[in-house]
C-alpha cells in the first residue's frame, strides 16, 4: 500500500520543531509499524536526508522503549499493544498517518520522536522497591501468598513504563504508572514494612517532576498496552490518605 506520513521533526530539545510530510510506497500489510519506519528511513538516507529518530529496542511489546503518538493516540489505533506490535494491516491504502512524540512537560523531546523519560526512573528511585540487600533473606516458600493476591500483584507489575498513560492524559498525569508499582508492593506481604513511606515518597517525587493531577478521565487505562487497571489509582489514593493520616509529616 501507499501512505502519506506527517511526522514531527525536531533537531534537539532547544529546537521548536515542525511536521514534515513523507510518502512511502509498496508497504506490505505484514510489516510492523516500525518496519515501515525502517523503510522510510532507508529511503531518507538514500536521498541523503536525516533519518527520523525514534526509540525502540525489543520490538515485541515488553521493553517499553517505543513511544509514538499515532493519529492522536499513544501506540496507535489498536488497543492493548505497543507501537512495535502494531502492524500495517491496521491501515488502509492511501491513508495519511500523523506521528508525534509523547508530549508532556516531564518528558522533554530530545530529538524527533525521542523523549526523555528519566522522570519515571526517579519516581522508582524515590521508593519503588523493597529494601532488602542481597543474601540473608528467608526461603522463598516461607512467604506464602494467596494465589489471587499474587495474580493481582502481577497484573499491576506488568507495567512496561512506556509512558503512554502520561501521553494520553490531558493533564499529563503519571498516576497510572505510579499506582501500578505502589499497588504491586502494597498487595504483597514483603511490601508491608515500607508501605506508608513508599507511597508518600513516590507521590512527592511525581509531583516534583511536573506531572499533572489526575481528574479521573480514564484515558490512561484506555491506551495502556498492558491494560493496567485504573483501580490501581483508587488503591493508591487510599494508601496515600491512610499514610498521611498516620504520618508524622502531616
Amino acid at each position, binding site marked *: 500500500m501507499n501512505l502519506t506520513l506527517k511526522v514531527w521533526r525536531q533537531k534537539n530539545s532547544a529546537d521548536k520543531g515542525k511536521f514534515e510530510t513523507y510518502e512511502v510506497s509498496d508497504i506490505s500489510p505484514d510489516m510492523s509499524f516500525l518496519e515501515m519506519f525502517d523503510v522510510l528511513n532507508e529511503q531518507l538516507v*538514500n536521498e541523503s536526508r536525516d533519518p527520523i529518530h525514534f526509540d525502540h529496542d*525489543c520490538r515485541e511489546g515488553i521493553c517499553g522503549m517505543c513511544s509514538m503518538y499515532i493519529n492522536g493516540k499513544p501506540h496507535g489505533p489498536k488497543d492493548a499493544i505497543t507501537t512495535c506490535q502494531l502492524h500495517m494491516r491496521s491501515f488502509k491504502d492511501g491513508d495519511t498517518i500523523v506521528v508525534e512524540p509523547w508530549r508532556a512537560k516531564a518528558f522533554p523531546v530530545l530529538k524527533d520522536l525521542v523523549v526523555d523519560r528519566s522522570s519515571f526512573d526517579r519516581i522508582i528511585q524515590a521508593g519503588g522497591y523493597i*529494601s532488602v540487600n*542481597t543474601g540473608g533473606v528467608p526461603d522463598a516458600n516461607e512467604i506464602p501468598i494467596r494465589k489471587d493476591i499474587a495474580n493481582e500483584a502481577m497484573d499491576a507489575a506488568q507495567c512496561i513504563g512506556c509512558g503512554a498513560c502520561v501521553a494520553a492524559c490531558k493533564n499529563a498525569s503519571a498516576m497510572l504508572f505510579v499506582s501500578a508499582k505502589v499497588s504491586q508492593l502494597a498487595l504483597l506481604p514483603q511490601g508491608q514494612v515500607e508501605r506508608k513511606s513508599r507511597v508518600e515518597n513516590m507521590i512527592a517525587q511525581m509531583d516534583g517532576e511536573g506531572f499533572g493531577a489526575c481528574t479521573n478521565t480514564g484515558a490512561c487505562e484506555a491506551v495502556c498496552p498492558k491494560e493496567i487497571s485504573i483501580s490501581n489509582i483508587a488503591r493508591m489514593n487510599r494508601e496515600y490518605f491512610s499514610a498521611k493520616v498516620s504520618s508524622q509529616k502531616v
Partner: protein
Amino acid sequence: MNLNSKIPEGPIAEKWTKHKFNMKLVNPANKRKYDIIVVGSGLAGASASASFAELGYNVKCFCFQDSPRRAHSIAAQGGINAAKNYQNDGDSIYRLFYDTVKGGDYRSREANVHRLAEVSVNIIDQCVAQGVPFAREYGGLLDNRSFGGAQVSRTFYARGQTGQQLLLGAYSALSRQIANGKVKMYARTEMLDLVLVEGKARGIVTRNLVTGKIESHSAHAVVLATGGYGNVFFLSTNAMGSNCTAAWRAHKKGALFGNPCFTQIHPTCIPVSGDHQSKLTLMSESLRNDGRVWVPKVAKPKLTAKEATKIPEEERDYYLERKYPSFGNLVPRDVASRNAKMVCDEGRGVGNTGLAVFLDFADAIKRDGKDVIEAKYGNLFDMYKQITGDNPYEMPMMIYPAVHYTMGGLWVDYNLMTNIPGLYAIGEANFSDHGANRLGASALMQGLADGYFVIPYTIGDYLATMPYTKVDTDHEAFREVESKLKAKLDKLMSIKGKQTVDDFHKALGKIMWEYCGMSRNEEGLKLAKGKIQALKKEFWEDVKVLGSQDELNMSLEKANRVADFIELGELMIDDALHRSESCGGHFREESQTGEGEAKRKDDEFSFVSAWEYKGENQAEELHKEELVFENVKLTQRSYK
C-alpha cells in the same frame, strides 16, 4: 599465554564453599575507597551493581537504552531454573549440574556449572524478597513447570514475562542504590573502549548518545555485563540494540574470546515474512509441551495454515515424534532446530517461503478443551495472531528456527575475570556455563547467579590486592584511547559512501546464516571467510552515515556496532572452521552419526577455544583450555 582457569581444588560440591573462605576480603570500612564500573544493566549488570553498592563499593553503571529497566533481559518469557526441589520430584543441585553439563554437550567447565546450580536456590529467595510476583499454587506456595524437555519441574515463572519481572526486581534494587548515592547511573551512554593502565583494566571511554560527548571514566575494576552477540546474524530474537561492541573492543585490547562459534538457534520462532523483516519473535518453548510439530509427507509448496487443517493424518509427518519416540516434540533446542531445517531442505517446508513447519494444537484442544489451552498459552496465541494475522486456535502455527542466544563470549576464569587483570565478564557476555548448548530457563539463572552471588565475592579477592589510589582520567592512557576513538568516529563519518549501515548488516547476516548457522561445513566456511573480508573492506570504503557526531545519531551508533559485528563474524567463522567436530548448537556436516545426529570428537576437542587478537587483519591465535570431567561421564547425547 598461560590460560589459568583457577578452578579450586577439592571435591566438586565443596569447591565454591572452600573458595569463598580462601578468598581475600576487603575490610568493610575500606570498600568505599574502591570504584567499580559496570557496563550493562540487564539481569547480570543490575544485580551486580546493586550488590556491589550494598557492600559499600562506589559503582558507575552504564546502559545504552534510556533506562536501565529496558535491558534485553526484559524480553525473556519462559522462566528461570533453580534446584529447589519444591515439587519433590527428585531434583537436586547435583541433577541440575548434571543436566546442564550434559545439555551443553560436555563443553563447559564442571566447577562453574556446579556453582551455578548451588546458588540457583538463593536466586529465587532473593527475587521473592524483592517482591517478584512468581506464579503460585492455591496453597500460596511457588508453582513450577517443566521446561525445555527437563525431566523435573524446576522452572519458576511469572506468566510469560519472567525476564521482565526478574529484571524489574533487580532494577528496583539498583534504583534503591542510585537513590542512596552509591550507584551513579549513566543511561543512553555507550562504552566504546576499554582503558588499561600497567596491564590492568582501569576504566572505559564512553559516548553520550544524546550529546555525542566522549568521556572517560576511571575505576579499580571494570565489569562487562553487556549481553550476547546474536545480532551478528542481523535477524535474531535479540533486541534491536543488542551488540558486541563492548566485548569486542575489550577483545581487541587483549581479552580472549571463548568459543565464538557456539550459537543457539531456537526452534520455535515466527518465520520471516519478507525483506522488510527487522527482527524475529520467539514463541515460548513451552508451546512444545502441547503442540505437535509436522510437515506434509510429500512436498506441498506454499501450503497455508488454513489448508493444513484439511490434510489427513496419514499424509502428515510428525517427524520429531517419529525419529525420537522417547522425547518426541520435547527434544533439546539444537535437535529440534536442525530437524526443521532438514525437512525444509528436503522441500517439505510450508508457507510462502517454504521455510516453516507447523506447530499444531488441534489434538491438545480436542483433548483438554480450548479453555485449558487458552489458560496456558493465551498470551502467546494472541501475540502470534497479532503478528501473523492467523488464529492458532483454528489452524496450526507456523514456526522456524532463529538465532537466539550466544553461548560464546569473553573467556573468564572461575572468578569470572578475563585474562586482563581487573576486567570481568558476567551474564551472556561471558562464555562460561552453557558449553555448546544452553538449556531453557538457564540464562536468567546464570545472569543473576553471576551478579548477585558470584562476582560480589570474587571481585573482593582482586580489589584486596589493589592500592586505593585512583587513576586520573587525565592520565595519558585515557587520552590515547580517547584520541584513537575520535579518529575512528571521524573516519566513519567521513566515508560518505553509498550504502546504508543496514545494507551492510543485512549482507553480513545473510553470510553468517547461510554458512555459519544451523549447519556448517569446511567449504562453506572458507567461502564465507572470503566474503566477510570483502564486506569489511567495502564497509570502510562505502558506508553512508549522515548527521554529525555531536548529536543523537542512531546511524552512527549502528555503524559502530556493525563494524564490530563484521570482525566478530570473521572470528566465528575461524572458530567454526577449526572445530571440525559437531557439538550442541555447532553442527559440522563432516562429523555426524549414520543417523545424521551430531557427533562429538572428545579426544580432539574437549577444550574451550580462547582466541587472542593479534592486530588489524592478522590471524587470531588459538589457545586451548582443556576441559576435565571428573564427575560427569561423557556420552553421546541420545533422545531417541
